[in-house]
């Protein structure tokens, strides 16, 4: 078997922020450990403020760790790298660039535009946006914008795709559509996918493994492997069992947090 790229290893990572008043600190992540295999689809769920975005930003190279170490394919993560693409929640498209130029940004930045120009058009039509190739972001709907964000991150063929609640701001129909598209793109590109979400159903529908995090300090309280085959049926009993398990865990995490506050 050939060794594939896209392995992420988080070892005893703790992240402490200095608070605005400078006299106190905030422990965003405490002793987090994770092993994510190449081409695996993993979700991290948790209530808001549990540090899951911080964790993703550490993997992306946008934040440094306070203690511990984060590795990508055996190398310490230091700084952003096109090998690890990131899709933001919203408003990260460049408003002054057309859809095509937004998508081509990564190719130009990495000096691959000449060889990859047709890749841009292929990806645009792949997400049914050919009509809008010359439109500007403000002329698109929220769903279209997120499709562009997705494709913009994919154009540089990242080994790992980090998704920071990419569908959080969309209505449920658009969200379900894009979820299916995500699965298809994952099948085609075979990258490692790490999805942050607070939508439990979304996590179960998409991922092979789910990490549940508790807030303040952010810790991983449970890891749930899912062995259902794709495409998954949102109404199946197995789906419901897992959903209840996760919701119970999240509730539990909340109780523990209340104890912690006392």
């Amino acid at each position: 078997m050939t060794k594939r790229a896209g392995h992420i290893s988080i070892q005893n990572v703790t992240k402490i922020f200095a608070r605005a008043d400078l006299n106190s600190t905030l422990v965003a992540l405490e002793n987090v450990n994770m092993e994510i295999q190449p081409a695996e689809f993993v979700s991290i769920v948790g209530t808001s403020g549990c540090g899951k975005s911080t964790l993703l930003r550490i993997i992306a190279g946008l934040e440094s760790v306070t203690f511990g170490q984060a590795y990508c394919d055996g190398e310490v993560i230091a700084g952003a790298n096109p090998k690890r693409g990131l899709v933001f929640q919203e408003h990260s498209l460049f408003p002054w660039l057309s859809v095509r130029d937004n998508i081509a940004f990564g190719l130009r930045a990495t000096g691959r535009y000449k060889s990859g120009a047709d890749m841009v058009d292929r990806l645009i039509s792949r997400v049914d946006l050919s009509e809008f190739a010359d439109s500007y972001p403000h002329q698109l709907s929220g769903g279209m914008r997120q499709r562009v964000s997705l494709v913009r991150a994919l154009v540089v063929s990242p080994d790992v795709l980090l998704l920071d609640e990419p569908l959080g701001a969309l209505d449920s129909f658009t969200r379900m559509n894009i979820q299916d598209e995500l699965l298809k793109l994952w099948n085609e590109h075979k990258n490692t996918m790490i999805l942050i979400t607070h939508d439990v159903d979304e996590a179960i529908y998409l991922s092979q493994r789910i990490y549940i995090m508790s807030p303040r300090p952010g810790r991983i309280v449970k890891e749930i492997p899912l062995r259902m085959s794709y495409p998954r049926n949102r109404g199946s009993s197995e789906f419901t069992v897992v959903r209840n398990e996760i919701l119970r865990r999240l509730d539990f995490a909340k109780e523990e947090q209340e104890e912690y506050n006392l």
Partner: protein
Amino acid sequence: MAVIVTMQYKITPNLNNAATTDIYTGFILLMGLIVLVKFIRSLFSKKSFENLLEKAPLYTAGLLLFALYDYATLKTGILPLPYFPWPDRILNGIYEDWALLLDCIKNSLILLFSGYFAGAAVGLLTGLSAGLSRRVRYWVLPLVQILGPIPSTTWLPIILIAAASLFGGSVFLIALGVWYPVTMTSMQGVLNIPKANFEAARILGAGRARLLFKVALPATMPNIFQGLTQGMSVACTALMVAEMMGVESGLGWYINWQRGWAEFAKMYGAVIVICITFSVVNFLLSLIKRRVLRWQEGHWN
């Protein structure tokens, strides 16, 4: 409408048998002709019809105002000479001096744009670098805060004494007036860029130069143009003051010079020419702005 105004001009007896020419007639009839052309076009296009319908009261009022002014000056003398020359006299004044006026426009524009571009360029440099670097901001901000509120024309008397050449001094004056708003707005613009834009660019592999020229600069363009527009109005003011106070050419100088001869008609004429010149300059600026900022919301088409 134009015909009526013309008849009022031609038929009503003039005060004291003052001499008149047909330039005013031609002017009014030209206005009428423009409206007539618009009317004929509106017969074929719904859009221009609606446009004309909306603007019709404005055109009528404009022509009426001419007639009223003509009546008050030429016909009855309610507004007396020499302070209120009638429209025909003003137009004749422009006509007589048109070669000199053209030269004045040329000199004014040279001075205006020399100062404007110098000020805008330096303003962009200070504004962008102050926005991007905390250390530059530390030194630039107090300077801007102290110098900014002083109207640039305040420096004129000093420049008149100290500057080696009046032209150079005036360029400096105009540039200073433009520098301030451009610096402020472009600095604010850089500080307001959403962090996600920079992060997305970094993740896609953008280096420092690309972050500066392909992210920071275009993201700041709306603010920069706000500063450029403000700067243009400051520059026009500074230009007029400089020309009236010292520079021996240009439209401001022309007005002042004609005042010396008590040529009120020509002064009014110059005001009209100034109005047209600056309107054209501002129109060109807004065209460029539209083009550059076509990606913005509300800038469809």
